[in-house]
């Protein structure tokens, strides 16, 4: 299923920050589509993100992001026709520090089955995880991410109005943060789709940060649909606000394994 391959893994930059705490984000930059991985299948993805122009100073004990290379392995297992569980391993590499383990997250997800014939795709994921204080002062975080998407002919639209909560760290008292993401793309050919992805962190939902302190990123991105088994995404991100890394290059390579169950179907 094509969009299982394009957008199934996905989403956001974990706990990008708040108004007061600085964190390294940009580990897994993708907008979720509503589909889940099919039952008995596994999707393995490698997210590679390089910050070409980012934070150059240590802030609150957190490593700078400038010239950081983040590699994230994401393994998602389809449970049934409407649910999956994803697991993340985050790593970071910077000059002088080598490859560092950053943390792990787990992300169950459920969706509205196709058989309900809703006019849009809808799913909800929740993500819980730990990251080392060296990379984020908020070490335990939780996120809930509603996902709505729609494919219309050659056009694709997705929106992820995610809500985040810090369980352990300086942002515990900030309440719920709002970190929406969205995407639209156009199918130029069967194999090549191109579009724009948007990621943001507005800070606390009850106390929206000033534009200066918001994180805003725009990624012109392409998806290559070269095979049902492979997912390839590439983009270059621009961060126009002071609180955002200014240039990020991201790539995703994913491989689906159905363990032979679809042969002859």
């Amino acid at each position, binding site marked *: *299923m*094509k*969009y*299982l391959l*394009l957008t199934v893994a996905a989403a956001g930059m974990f706990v990008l920050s708040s108004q007061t705490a600085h964190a390294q984000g940009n580990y897994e930059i993708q907008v979720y589509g509503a*589909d889940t991985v099919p039952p008995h299948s596994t999707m393995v993805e490698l997210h590679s993100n390089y910050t070409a122009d980012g934070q150059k100073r240590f802030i609150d004990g957190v490593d700078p992001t400038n010239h950081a290379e983040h590699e994230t392995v994401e393994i998602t297992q389809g449970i049934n026709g409407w649910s999956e569980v994803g697991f993340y391993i985050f790593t970071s590499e910077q000059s002088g520090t080598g490859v560092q383990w950053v943390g792990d997250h787990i992300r169950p997800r459920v969706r509205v089955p*196709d*058989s309900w*014939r809703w006019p849009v795709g809808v799913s909800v994921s929740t993500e819980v995880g730990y990251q080392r204080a060296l990379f984020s002062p908020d070490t335990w975080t939780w996120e809930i991410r509603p996902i709505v998407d*729609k*494919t*219309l*002919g*050659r*056009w*694709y639209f997705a929106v992820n109005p995610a809500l985040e909560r810090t369980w352990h760290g300086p942002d515990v008292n900030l309440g719920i943060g709002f970190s929406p993401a969205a995407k639209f793309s156009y*199918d130029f*050919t*069967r*194999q090549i*789709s191109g579009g724009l992805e948007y990621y943001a962190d507005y800070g606390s939902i009850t106390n929206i940060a000033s534009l200066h302190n918001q994180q805003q990123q725009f990624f012109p991105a392409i998806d290559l*649909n070269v095979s*049902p088994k492979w997912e390839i995404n590439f983009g270059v991100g621009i961060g126009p606000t002071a609180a955002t890394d200014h240039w990020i290059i991201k790539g995703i390579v994913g491989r689906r394994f159905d363990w032979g169950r679809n042969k*002859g*179907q």
Partner: protein
Amino acid sequence: MASASALLPRPSGAAAWPQATSPNSLSSPINPPDFTIEIGELEWELSPKKKIRTSAYDGQIPGRLLRVTEGNAVTIEILNKLDRPEIVHWHGQWIPSDVDGAMEEGSPMIPAGGTTRVTFTPKPSGLHWYHTHTAAHRDLKLGLYSGQFGMLLVEGRDHPGNYDQEQFLVLHDWEPYFVNSDDGSQMVNYAAATINGRMLGHADPIQVKAGQRVLFHVLNASATEPHWLSLPGHQFQVIALDGRPVPTRANVDILRLGPAERISAIVIMNTPGVYILGEARGAFRDVGMGTIVEYANSVGKPQSVPEIRLRWDYGQFGDSSPSSYKPDVTVPLIFTSHFEGHGALARWRINGKSFPETDPVILHEGFRHRLVFNNPSTDDHPVHLHRHAFELVSIRGAATSGIRKDVVIVEAGSTVEADLVADNPGNTLFHCHQQDHMDAGFMALFRYV
């Protein structure tokens, strides 16, 4: 020249096609028809927990089994109680274009609320069927997504084989919806499936006795899905494909039927027990495609088929020697798709063009035409030729002969050759029997000169 109607796009049943006139003047009691078919809406119970609203024939799913005799003319009155034009196609019958039941050939549609009669002489014998031939496009309540189908059994002089009882099984898929597919375009998936209109466990069991020979007549009336049928512990001796006797009655563990294909097969009941006769793939059984076969004096939980290899080869039912006939004309037919977006159905083409722009295939009466079905696409296609049967000549390069069909699955990336002797003049429709493919241009008209 093709008729004007044949050049029009394929509507979902609107008034673009010619319609029958004098809708109510034909119901004369002086000359009663042999059969009457009423097309209407109904609520149907697939299971106690699942009801659907659809359209069907005579208030039942499938429609009544029509038994007729080869060579004896039959008159059928059709009442269309729907609020849209309809048409009934007599699938597998070698009859004139104007009664065949395809607008593209010139058969008139039955107006909304109207009545018409068709008279034809059934030929050939065997298991055939009748069904709506309207387009659906993105309205998944229309066309073969509905319940408008039934079996037509044409009794012939040839006995189909010794048997103790006959069973008729009609496969269908329900509650369709669009999903994204591996090939990048949308496809249709289903939430429910039935045999004879009932989900597994919700129909009376088929009662058999040890030692009986049961003749199963199976029709796949699904709009788009091929189906694999198995009966644990038993084999099927295939005696006919698409109603035509096969040269070699091979025994097989599993039957494959593409949309519109029919198989007649004898099962010798030699393993007492209670079984599920149903889809070999669990996902389809789980949504209802199966029925219970119960031996006399047997009780217990029905056994379903274990993991079984999905393998089918038409050639095993053919003559071992290749056809000795040389074709007079070779007709290449290449099936390709045109990408319309990940959120759309693909557009299908025959020799580079979609219907109604497809070039007509010219037939010469009495000539042997070798149809070369070349499918470089990534989808299998159950292609169907109206009003004729063709003889399979080669499948993926392997020669065969003696298998006469009107539907053949041309698997993705393969070529099938079939010989057609043009012996039934008149406009003749050729198309993929997947509803979503035929609606998306996979059609061509064969014309006699």
